[in-house]
């Protein structure tokens, strides 16, 4: 169905090709999973299938790509629309019309499908994707999962034989992602559509894949049976990592596979686990860095947060979980003080435990760059923005919103300027600026301006190797996140909040983020992360807070919360239940050096 014959793609101005001599043959009706890090050429490979590479993106394509017998070099994307449909990561960006029905009909209208046939196909598609009740809804009023289903449905109404999906679930919460994946598998099973799918969170898709294509990042491509390909792809989903650790052949792809082989492993594992899933940097007895009580956020008649109380402690990493729209973001923004808050109090700032532990006595507390200690506590909402960010820093869902300069270096030096106490437009205007932690930190003995290290140093620690002259917009999602995190850390806030940082990150970037958060916790920052990613929460967090309908419904140690419910259980916990293991490294440590391979 899809054939790559010695294909190389080189973008204009690039030194080396993104794809090099790729030979690939994908049969009809296969679900083909494309695996690889960010920047390894996944999108290029997918774009080459529906002709967007090189017709739309530019660059040079050598070799030959044929889809359903048509050579993409000779047919432009619009002329391939009836054989290959494509859907991107952000469905909303591709919507041309504004109601569900019209959007589904759009492709067919372009292809001049007969009106009667159009009507039948549209009704079928509505049923296939469970959209019948939404047919006249405005697209902007749909949830992310519904939008993605509409986008896939709209590509499908043209009856393409190939469907190319570039990270269709990366922006969705687990439940919506399941809906979309269920719709995709239905396509493959019932309709025989060939689907090429790129996805970061392999654990969701892997069980359904017929074939995997792995791009290691050097331009080459390995294709084959998912289990065999996965054995070479590092790092993989936890189930594969566990299989590798336990030496299972072939690698299990689903929790079900793994669980059937798990009894022997379970027998060898001690209960309780000898090491915890995540080493807590929490200091007992410390007073909270952020103490929010009875927070209410409402937008008109919609109550986003209903009286939630949350205390964040220095050195503790807290995961904030819950489905889309459960109020996670609103709570974080309200705590930071920039978001609106209808009721409730927030006290944030210097940890009062300072008296009990003199500077320098703590192994890590006195490191420069840690949060300012001993300052007065204040409500960040009552301060000017420049002062509020010294108490609580927030990394928004789209970190790029904060970046406006031309190079990474310019952003960093701007951040250093802003990070100095009294700097920034609002710094002097802060009514309660006297006695803020920033001032207190300035008086500290370490001599660094504002107690903050140069942002370049912070960035190199979080994500080494970002070129100073790179344009911030050219960085990968993970690098942008690191850059914004570094910028926010120059203010040395007592608490750092991250809103959905794992969106669109690959395994490598996520591991990097985990390490960075761990180091920050070690420096005494209180950290809260809103996330849908259970595996990330299991690896990085000490405590899990679950929200639903604006209320906090669960708040407890990660090990307890994550093993207690199937929805929030990581794969390892599902495989090894009832043993309370959460992560693969934990098992590796438990098995000891002998058992590890």
């Amino acid at each position, binding site marked *: 169905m899809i054939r790559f014959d010695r294909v190389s793609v080189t973008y204009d101005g690039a030194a080396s090709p993104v794809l090099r001599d790729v030979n690939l043959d994908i049969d009809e009706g296969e679900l083909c999973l494309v695996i690889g890090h960010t920047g390894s050429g996944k999108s290029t490979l997918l774009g080459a299938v529906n002709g967007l590479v090189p017709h739309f993106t530019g660059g040079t394509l050598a070799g030959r790509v044929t889809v359903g017998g048509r050579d993409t070099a000779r047919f432009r994307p619009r002329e391939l629309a009836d054989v290959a449909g494509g859907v991107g990561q952000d469905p909303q960006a591709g919507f041309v019309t504004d109601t569900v029905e019209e959007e589904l009909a759009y492709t067919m209208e372009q292809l001049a499908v007969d009106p009667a046939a159009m009507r039948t196909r549209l009704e079928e598609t509505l049923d296939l994707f469970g959209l019948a009740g939404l047919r006249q809804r405005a697209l902007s009023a749909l949830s992310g999962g519904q939008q993605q289903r509409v986008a896939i449905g709209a590509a499908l109404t043209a009856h393409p034989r190939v469907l190319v999906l570039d990270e269709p679930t990366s922006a969705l919460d687990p439940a919506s992602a399941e809906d979309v994946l269920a719709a995709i598998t239905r396509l493959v099973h019932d309709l025989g559509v060939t689907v090429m799918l790129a996805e970061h969170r392999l654990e969701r898709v892997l069980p359904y894949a017929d074939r995997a294509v792995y791009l290691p990042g050097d331009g080459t491509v390995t294709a084959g049976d998912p289990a065999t390909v996965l054995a070479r792809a590092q790092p993989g989903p936890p189930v594969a990592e566990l299989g590798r650790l336990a030496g299972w052949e072939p690698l299990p792809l689903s929790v079900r596979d793994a669980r059937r082989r798990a009894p022997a492993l379970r027998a060898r594992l001690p209960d309780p686990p000898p090491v915890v899933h995540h080493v807590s940097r929490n200091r007992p007895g410390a007073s909270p860095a952020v103490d929010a009580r009875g927070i209410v956020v409402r937008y008109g008649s919609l109550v986003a947060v209903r009286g939630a109380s949350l205390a964040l402690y220095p050195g503790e990493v807290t995961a904030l979980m819950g489905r889309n729209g459960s109020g996670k973001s609103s709570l974080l923004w309200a705590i930071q003080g920039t978001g609106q808050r209808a009721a409730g109090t927030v006290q944030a700032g210097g940890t009062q435990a300072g008296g009990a532990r003199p500077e320098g006595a703590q192994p890590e507390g006195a490191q420069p760059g840690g949060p300012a200690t001993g300052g007065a506590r204040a409500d960040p909402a009552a301060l000017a923005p420049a002062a509020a960010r010294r108490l609580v820093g927030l*990394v928004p869902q789209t970190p790029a919103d904060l970046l406006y300069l031309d190079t990474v270096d310019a952003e960093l030096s701007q951040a250093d300027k802003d990070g100095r106490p009294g700097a920034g437009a609002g710094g002097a205007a802060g009514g309660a600026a006297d006695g803020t932690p920033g001032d207190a930190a300035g008086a500290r003995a370490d001599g660094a301006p504002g107690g903050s290290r140069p942002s370049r140093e912070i960035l190199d620690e979080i994500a080494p190797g970002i070129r100073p002259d790179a344009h911030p917009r050219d960085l990968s999602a993970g690098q942008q996140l690191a850059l914004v995190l570094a910028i926010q850390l120059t203010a040395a806030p007592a608490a750092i909040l991250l809103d959905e940082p794992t969106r669109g990150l690959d395994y490598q970037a996520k591991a990097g983020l985990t390490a960075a958060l761990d180091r920050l916790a070690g420096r005494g920052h209180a950290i809260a992360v809103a996330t849908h990613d259970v595996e990330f929460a299991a690896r990085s967090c000490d405590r899990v807070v679950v929200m639903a309908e604006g209320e906090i419904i669960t708040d407890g140690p990660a090990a307890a919360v994550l093993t207690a419910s199937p929805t929030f259980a990581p794969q390892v916990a599902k495989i090894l239940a009832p043993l309370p293991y959460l992560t693969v490294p934990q098992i590796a440590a438990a098995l000891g050096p002998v058992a590890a391979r």
Partner: protein
Amino acid sequence: MSPPAGWPGPLRAVSPPAVRLASAGAVSPPPVPPNSLRALGSGRLPRALHPVAWWLWAIALATAASRTSNPLLLLMIFAVLGFVVTMRRTEAPWARGYRFYLLMALTVIVIRVAFRVVFETGVNPGDHVLFALPRLPTPGWYSGVQIGGRVSLEAVLSAVLDGARLACLLCCIGAANTLANPKRALRVLPGALYELGTAVTVALSVAPQLVESVQRVRRARRLRGGGGRGPRALRAIAVPVLHDALERSLRLAAAMDARGYGRTGPATRASRRLTALLMLGGLAGLCLGAYGLLGAGAPAGVGLGGFAAGAALCLGALVLGGRRVSRSRYRPDPWRWPEWAVVGSGAVSAIVLSLGAGYDPAALNPSLYPLSWPALPVLPALAILVAALAAVAAPPPPAGPGRPGPEEAPVPAPQPAVAALPGATR
């Protein structure tokens, strides 16, 4: 794809009992064969009336309104508009705007009267003077306009009537906008102008996204400690927003390309050139025609001829251009007898008021001298009432899109089974 089991098949229009015809009142010939009776019935099932029908109806009423300054007739037109809008508007966002048109109409009248009161226009000997405003002295070179002075009832009334007529036209447009989905109206554009419709649709959806983007970035800027004003803030907000907009438009363009937008049909270079030539010629003809019709010096023949030739050329270009566009239309609005009835009911009032036959034409524009209660001419009044039949002739609008369907029953949420763990919270 094969239809899933249990698929009921294309929706078929079910004919309602013939009794409904009686209530339609528009056409009721008794010996109608059952087939056409069914067709009549299915035409009135709840659906959106063809947008062009509403526009023609509104334009006809506007024509009627422009012919008269009889307050009774104008009031009747207002009443008809209000009645039809209330009966046949949908729940859609664009249909909630009639109130604003009414407000705008009221403003027009108020402004008109205020100007007439402030700028004196002279009082005739027999006028009823209401009050006098202090007169502002104006310099000699400005003597054409006088500010302040005596205000007569006649002047105020004529201002009210003038304003009311303008307000009536405004409300006609408002009614058309309220009753017809503006985007569906764009869909009736000929194939060659399809791109225009797409551009408008995309622009309409981009505007709110841009606003959202600006709000998001402004909010995010506070996170870096920046304020919302000044040149630095402008850059910090504009750069991410523009990046965002540019990326989004590129993705939209890619998506549209991948979905077959702009697939060209079998068009040769010659036919494309011919289309362009026809279009240019047609536009030139229209310009010439407009000049001839409006300019005093040109003979009337040049105007009419140029206009006709220009229109014909443009039409030819559209047809030719439309032929090479191979595209079909999803669920085009049908044009059935209710559309004819609606257009006809409007046309009756326009024709009766324009012809001025069968009644005293002077009754359309009653004189304010001497001041008297205006007479209501019977035929025009009846004609305007006929326009109200549109409310009955048009099928009821479909149920609003906001109505939750069975699919939208709240999905059982994945509630974590963990109750508050004892000792878990601090």
